[in-house]
């Protein structure tokens, strides 16, 4: 194999290290999966890490935020964790370490490494969709993905209990990992998916979750990253939502010094409903970026987004949301809202809600507000005897609760609310 | 005055490929108030929209003539200029366009189409103030966006105000009583009655007889399944009020 000249975009120490990871990948399988991974590596080689002048990364300059690339987590370092009750998958150091001991009929769990061992086989096209494919960090995950989990729900199967995918690391030296997971929901199936992130070491995690919803499938996804969050985390969600399907995703973000959560959701069938919501609780020097691209490719889709940021310390938040309505995607109904509370003098927020519309018979709108607590409300509560701090706490909690209420699963909703309360307590 | 003013001949019309009117024949003379009554889904609103020329209402057979001239090939505004007025069941809201501006624009558009001189602002104000006073429409309502934030009663009164100002040859009232309390109904009916002349015809479309206590019709026609199934005098309305539409629905089926 000849060594190609280093492309101009690979400049920094981190980029050089990442290019090294790509070059040192074990011989890629032939077949469609290998092909897709080679293509993704090409995207990264061409673009490098995104920076300020890349519009979608304007507020999160990864090239300067990611000074170095920590070594890839060694596959052998994966620890075995005891299997727990319930449908829980554990991804440790990027390796699928635990699968549920038994699974209900119609639900199938496969470690991604096993699924890919045969060249990706039937999964390849779904594992590497052409959604968000020119985003270089997402491409990096695609190129370096070696393990994760594939979850298949057969048509018509309704999973009662939530399925959890828990990502963590073993203790030890700093490392980086690129897990990738795939969920395939058959026609008319329904499931609740909980995605939780933690780590026991300094980690750069670049994770991806790909969801395919066939006609009429209903999926609720709850993403939670909290106290022991990865230090640097890029979490990509790719979704393809079929006709009449419903996809609801909620994210509770608290913790980690750098988080970029990006969702690329494509509505590929008519009358699909997409709901993306979240609460970001930021303090200290945290930087959290939520970026959404909702692609209404066909008519009669509905999308709703609601994101709340509460920012204190010298933390900074970013919300970018693009609603794209393609030509002929008539009767699209889109509504996006971003609301931010800034609680300290050094807190910062950047909002970029975007509409890109090529069909005339649509109703789309967005709203964004940035501000402080309502002084009238605060006053009212205080006249009723609440101390200022408590009154503030109450109002902040109510502000965030409005989004949390959208979590459909009761247990997950309660655990999000509890995490909010815990976070608020740390402020006092 | 035996010539018919509005003549509907064997009208077949469909919406979205589904036939709603199935051979409707009806004739209204100048000076006559004809009531069309019918149960839900009989085609009442379709009839008003077809006469006014709303897009998507396809006439597959038959004709509609005003003063002996077919209107089917005309655009809605051309029909309006010929003197056809439809009081909508659900008047539209148009934000940012004041009622005042809308009325003047519409009056002048029609005058222009008929080759008449446009009204000066002063003349327009005079006419409008007089007419709105009669209907109890407050001045500040005219300065607001057209129908924006108006109550059901206010919207209907405004429809009648428009009719008074535009002085149509023929007025169609589509379920004008829906959503009105008894006081609002009386005001609206008085407004309509004031416009009754020997030269002007009306088609009053309604589900209930109560409107016809206030606007007493010369003839009553029962619409069922897209056709006129019975015609008679005003006593027919009372009969319907007593017995309901049951007999006619059965007949049609």
């Amino acid at each position, binding site marked *: 194999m000849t060594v190609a000249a280093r492309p101009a975009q690979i400049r920094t120490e981190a980029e050089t290290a990442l290019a090294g990871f790509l070059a040192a990948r074990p011989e890629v399988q032939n077949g469609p999966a290998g092909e897709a991974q080679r293509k993704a590596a090409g995207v990264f080689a061409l673009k490098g890490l995104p920076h300020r002048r890349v519009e979608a990364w304007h507020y999160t300059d990864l090239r300067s935020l990611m000074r170095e690339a920590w070594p890839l987590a060694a596959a052998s370092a994966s620890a075995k964790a005891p299997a727990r009750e319930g449908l829980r998958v554990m991804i440790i150091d990027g390796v699928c370490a635990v699968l549920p001991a038994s699974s209900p009929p119609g639900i199938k769990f496969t470690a991604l490494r096993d699924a890919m061992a045969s060249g990706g086989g039937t999964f390849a096209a779904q594992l590497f969709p052409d959604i968000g494919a020119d985003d270089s960090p997402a491409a990096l995950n695609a190129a370096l993905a070696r393990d994760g989990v594939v979850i298949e729900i057969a048509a018509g199967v309704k999973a009662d209990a939530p399925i959890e995918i828990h990502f963590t690391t073993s203790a030890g030296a700093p490392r980086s990992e690129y897990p990738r997971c795939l969920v395939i929901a058959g026609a008319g199936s329904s499931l609740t998916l909980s995605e939780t992130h933690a780590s026991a070491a300094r980690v750069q995690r670049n994770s991806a979750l790909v969801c395919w919803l066939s006609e009429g499938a209903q999926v609720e996804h709850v993403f939670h990253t909290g106290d022991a969050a990865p230090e640097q985390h890029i979490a990509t969600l790719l979704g393809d939502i079929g006709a009449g399907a419903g996809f609801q995703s909620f994210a509770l973000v608290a913790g980690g010094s750098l988080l970029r959560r990006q969702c690329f959701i494509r509505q590929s069938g008519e009358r699909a409903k997409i709901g993306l919501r979240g609460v970001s609780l930021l303090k200290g020097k945290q930087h959290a970026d939520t970026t959404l691209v909702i692609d209404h490719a066909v008519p009669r889709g509905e999308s709703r987004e609601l994101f709340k940021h509460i920012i204190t310390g010298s933390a900074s938040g970013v919300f970018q949301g693009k609603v794209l309505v393609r030509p002929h995607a008539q009767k699209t109904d889109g509504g996006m809202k971003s609301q931010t509370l800034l609680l300290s003098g050094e807190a910062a927020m950047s909002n970029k809600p*975007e*509409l890109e519309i090529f069909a005339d018979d649509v109703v*789309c709108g967005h*709203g964004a507000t940035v501000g402080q607590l309502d002084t009238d409300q605060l006053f009212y509560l205080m006249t009723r005897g609440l101390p200022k701090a408590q009154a503030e706490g109450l109002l902040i909690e109510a502000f965030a609760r409005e989004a949390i209420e959208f979590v459909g699963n009761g247990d997950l909703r309660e655990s999000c609310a509890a995490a909010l309360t815990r976070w608020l307590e740390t402020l006092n | 005055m035996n010539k018919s003013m509005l003549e509907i001949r064997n009208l077949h019309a469909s919406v979205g490929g589904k036939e709603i009117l199935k051979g409707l024949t009806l004739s209204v003379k100048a000076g006559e108030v004809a009531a069309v009554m019918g149960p839900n889904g009989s085609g009442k609103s379709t009839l008003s929209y077809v006469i006014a020329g709303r897009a998507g209402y396809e006439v597959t057979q038959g004709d509609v003539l005003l003063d002996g001239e077919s209107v089917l090939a005309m655009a809605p*505004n051309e029909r309006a200029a010929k003197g056809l007025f439809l009081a909508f069941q659900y008047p539209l809201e148009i934000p*940012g366009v004041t009622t005042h*501006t809308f009325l003047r*624009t519409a009056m002048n558009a029609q005058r222009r189409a008929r080759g008449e001189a446009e009204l000066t602002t002063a003349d327009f104000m005079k006419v409008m103030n007089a007419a709105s006073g009669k209907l109890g429409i407050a001045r500040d309502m005219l300065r607001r966006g057209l129908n924006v934030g108006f109550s059901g009663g206010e919207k209907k009164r405004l429809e009648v105000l428009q009719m008074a100002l535009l002085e149509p040859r023929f007025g169609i009232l589509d379920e004008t009583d829906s959503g009105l309390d008894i006081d609002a109904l009386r005001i609206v009916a008085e407004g309509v009655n004031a416009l009754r002349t020997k030269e002007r015809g009306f088609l009053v479309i309604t589900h209930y007889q109560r409107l016809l206590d206030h606007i007493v019709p010369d003839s009553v026609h029962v619409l069922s399944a897209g056709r006129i199934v019975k015609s008679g005098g005003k006593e027919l309305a009372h009969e319907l009020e007593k017995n309901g539409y049951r007999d006619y629905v059965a007949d049609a089926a």
Partner: protein
Amino acid sequence: MAAVQETVDRVKSVDVDAYKYGFVTDIASDKAPKGLNDDTVRFISAKKNEPLWLTEWRLDAYKRWLTMREPDWAKVHYPKIDYQDLYYYSAPKSTPGPKSLDEVDPELLRVYEKLGIPLREREILLGVEGAGTRVAVDAVFDSVSVATTFKAELAKSGVIFCPISEAVHSHPELVKKYMGSVVPVTDNYFATLNSAVFSDGSFVYIPPGVRCPMELSTYFRINEQNTGQFERTLIIADKGSYVSYLEGCTAPKRDENQLHAAVVELIALDDAEIKYSTVQNWYPGDKDGKGGIYNFVTKRGDCRGARSKISWTQVETGSAITWKYPSCILRGDSSRGEFYSIAISNGRQQVDSGTKMLHLGKNTSSRVISKGIAAGRSDNTYRGQIFAHRKASGARNFTNCDSLLIGDTCGAHTVPYIEARNPSVMFEHEATTSKISEDQLFYCMQRGLSGEEATALIVNGFVRDVLQQLPMEFAVEAQKLIAVSLEGSVG
């Protein structure tokens, strides 16, 4: 303005193809050689008999321009411009410097008459007596200002209103102090190009405490073929003063594209207020996108003083490509910026326009109302930035941008950047995209309006908030212009 009446009366049944101001006037002109180099810059400077400092200022700008790249982030597409294939200076031959209107080429006066802009004060007085207002006009033809009216009367109240080429000589201290202080020479590619080759434009200075006794107006006309227009406007409102300024633009119909890269700088000192209104009606090209003006303009206001206020109102119906973001730097405490915009695109037009409100001082406020209307095969983008600096405590912004689509072959886009670096800010942004409903159209048509009249009426309702910001004379003209530019957009 007499232009109003003419627009009203004569513009009937025109579509994008039948642009009203598309006539070409045959006037002998004095041109710089084609192309751009040091000598072109010196030629322009010499033509204006400029002082050395300005020649050097221009040459410095040119040198920097050579190192810059044409911006490509806007949602507009056009073939690469060959900057060596343009004329950078063109002046009607009988000028420069007519001492009075009697010396102005009569052919030129007729051009402005045809455009509805009378330049003889006597005629202006006759023409607008009924309206009860007077407007002082600076007429810029290709590269030079050909006439400025009411100068004497304005001078009585201390107002300076003259071509900038004249101000360089008569008020060098003001020009030197303020030119380039709002839009730095290297601000962006087109502003830097303008700094090197700007030809003429208006200069306004309102002394402290003076309320300018009449509306000031500049009327821009591009006539020559292959000629770029690079005017530069500088308006200074000293403490406690007020001025309302109007700008109108037209150009002939030509098959090739013409470049317009202007720079407008506004400075408002303590308690001063500047109201700047534009009705931009450059030739938009024909319905297939052939010809038309490339309108790459840098407009920025600096609310330098406490409690100062700058308000931009624009009605954009022309140009093949519009790239402009009239902005406010809210530097003075309690200063206020406003941006009201109607941007209409039809045919193959591309509009990428919006504003920047940069909150730097304390308790500053801003308001942005943008109404974009896309028809035909056009693309219409609102791009706006609201920024509050860490020290901008109490900053307030309200933004509303609505888009309306007419037909399914056009695009409407909203790209706001909302950046808060201070916790006591209150930023509110809302945006909607919708269409004119069939039901609304039918309702209006049932009352006798034609499809186009109904569309125009509904659109006028849609843009009403912005129209109300325009001075009366302009509002009427703008309303008619909206109807005209949407003709042919309804099936």
